[in-house]
């Protein structure tokens, strides 16, 4: 029998009181073998492959939930970036591909499907351009499709043509979903140094270097980390780091177990465990509260970046030994709308976009689920993307922007997204124009340390 009853009760407390859960079991499916010169035929192959490969995904995940007694919040699918798959078809609009993904996802019952994506860190093909221009309608006219575009990398620098275009894509997406205050933008991420095995949305896609079908897992558990820290109040920060490592180890072990079981039962390879600490807007499931537990009166005040660096690093160190293969984003998520502590700090003005940007220099993933005034110009959105991309490209890390121009709303209003997407107070963006900078376009060269060969 397990050593002690205390261990058993601790695990149950983690699940029931501290809201430990598996955030997502994500199946990555390659669509490279669905490429066809005839778009309709390609889409038929895509639908068939997804519904065949993922037909048991939700059932298997629910079985594991019951067996282990731990919630698996989302079941998701990530596919090969559609710009790569659709390019051969000669179609001039990829909206139908998004609709196909949406239908396939709903047929198998998953919560989200990611991969309406393009990787343009060095340059765009015609297919990439078509995909990017198809994003606004794709997000407005489908329910569960998520989109991402990679516009920079440490190796290639920042593609400022794409940065300019993506500001406009976000703007257009917001306007097309204006009745829902720009909700479509919650399903769109702009990355620098995107990773091909990320199980989290909206940025999940299945990279071309991956095997045909894999299952990856994203864990959660900020409540567990906070509870562990509560037991060592006032301890030196190196002691806090040790406490976080131990909690991270336990959380990650469960992720590894769920991944192993899911892969075995689905008959596919096990991909990775993403060590990210993912919050929800529920009380007791907040990364911000973990930072405050370390001694900050409110997240966003001086010391927040340092506390987050400690948390992020300790999570990685604890998680690395707990699983066979680490991947994805693996850092702490600091979305505004999905974290009750962040929501409150943004509403009170304790945290600003500038502080958030600083925080993204040391953790994943970036300006995430941030609502800005509905009339924010496309060039300002582009400039926000450029700033985040600069942090990622210069520091060899993934950064991203998932920003929602809250159409019809201004600073002080709150956008309700519902479900795990939560709600976001509209935060002020700088009013000084970035228009001329963004219009210059071209590319920002990669840093010297991008050339490591």
């Amino acid at each position, binding site marked *: *029998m*397990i*050593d002690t*009853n205390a*261990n*058993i*009760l*601790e*695990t*149950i407390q983690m699940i029931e009181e501290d809201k430990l859960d598996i955030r997502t079991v994500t199946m990555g499916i390659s669509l490279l073998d669905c490429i066809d010169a005839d778009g309709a035929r390609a889409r038929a192959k895509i639908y068939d492959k997804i519904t065949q490969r993922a037909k048991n995904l939700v059932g298997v995940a629910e*079985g594991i939930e*019951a*067996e*282990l*007694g*731990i919630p698996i919040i989302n079941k998701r699918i990530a596919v090969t970036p559609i710009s790569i798959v659709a390019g051969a078809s000669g179609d001039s609009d990829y909206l139908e591909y998004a609709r196909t993904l949406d239908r396939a996802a709903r047929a198998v019952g998953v919560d989200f499907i990611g991969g309406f994506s393009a990787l343009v860190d060095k340059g765009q093909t015609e297919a990439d351009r078509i995909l990017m221009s198809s994003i606004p309608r794709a997000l407005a006219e489908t329910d569960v499709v998520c989109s991402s575009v990679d516009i920079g990398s440490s190796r290639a620098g920042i593609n400022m043509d794409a940065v300019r275009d993506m500001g406009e894509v976000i703007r257009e997406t917001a306007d097309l979903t204006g009745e829902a205050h720009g909700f479509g933008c919650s399903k769109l991420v702009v990355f620098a140094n995107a990773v091909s095995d990320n199980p989290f949305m909206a940025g999940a896609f299945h990279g071309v270097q991956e095997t045909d079908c894999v299952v990856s897992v994203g864990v959660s558990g900020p409540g567990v980390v906070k509870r562990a820290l509560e037991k060592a109040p006032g301890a030196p920060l190196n002691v806090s780091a040790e406490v976080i490592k131990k909690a991270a180890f*336990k959380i990650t*072990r*469960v992720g*590894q*177990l769920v991944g192993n*079981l899911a892969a075995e039962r689905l008959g596919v390879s096990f991909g990775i465990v993403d060590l990210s600490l993912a919050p929800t807007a529920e009380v007791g499931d907040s990364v911000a509260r973990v930072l405050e537990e370390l001694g900050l009166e409110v997240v966003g005040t001086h010391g927040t970046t340092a506390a987050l660096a400690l948390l992020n690093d300790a999570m990685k160190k604890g998680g690395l030994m707990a699983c066979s293969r680490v991947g994805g984003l693996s850092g702490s998520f600091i979305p505004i709308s999905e974290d009750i502590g962040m929501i409150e700090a943004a509403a009170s003005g304790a945290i600003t976009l500038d502080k958030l940007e600083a925080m993204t220099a040391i953790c994943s993933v970036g300006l995430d689920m941030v609502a800005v005034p509905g009339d924010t110009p496309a060039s300002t959105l582009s400039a926000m993307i450029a700033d985040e991309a600069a942090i990622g490209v210069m520091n060899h890390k993934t950064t991203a922007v998932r920003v929602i121009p809250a159409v019809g709303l201004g600073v002080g209003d709150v956008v309700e997204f519902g479900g795990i997407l939560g709600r976001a107070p509209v935060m002020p963006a700088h009013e000084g124009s970035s228009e001329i900078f963004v219009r210059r376009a071209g590319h920002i060269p990669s840093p010297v340390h991008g050339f490591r060969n």
Partner: protein
Amino acid sequence: MKVILTVTGLDHEGIIAAVSTGLADLHVNILNVSQTLMEGYFTMIMQGEFDESKQTIEDIQAAMEPIGQAAQVEIRIQSEAIFEAMHTL
């Protein structure tokens, strides 16, 4: 499959009898039992084993739920795997 049952609730007569009778009817073999009272709060942890080829853990959970309701206790039944994963190297 080996499972861990945890039974919690306000203490009263017959909890162990109700749970163990239910498990016997379901052909779940009890391997280990530990029970304590904390300020009138009943906490029992049991390790059990059953033949997976004959029934699933979900069948057992479903069958034990009315027994827990009748005895006014909460019965959780989880695969031992999650506790082993978390607490052993």
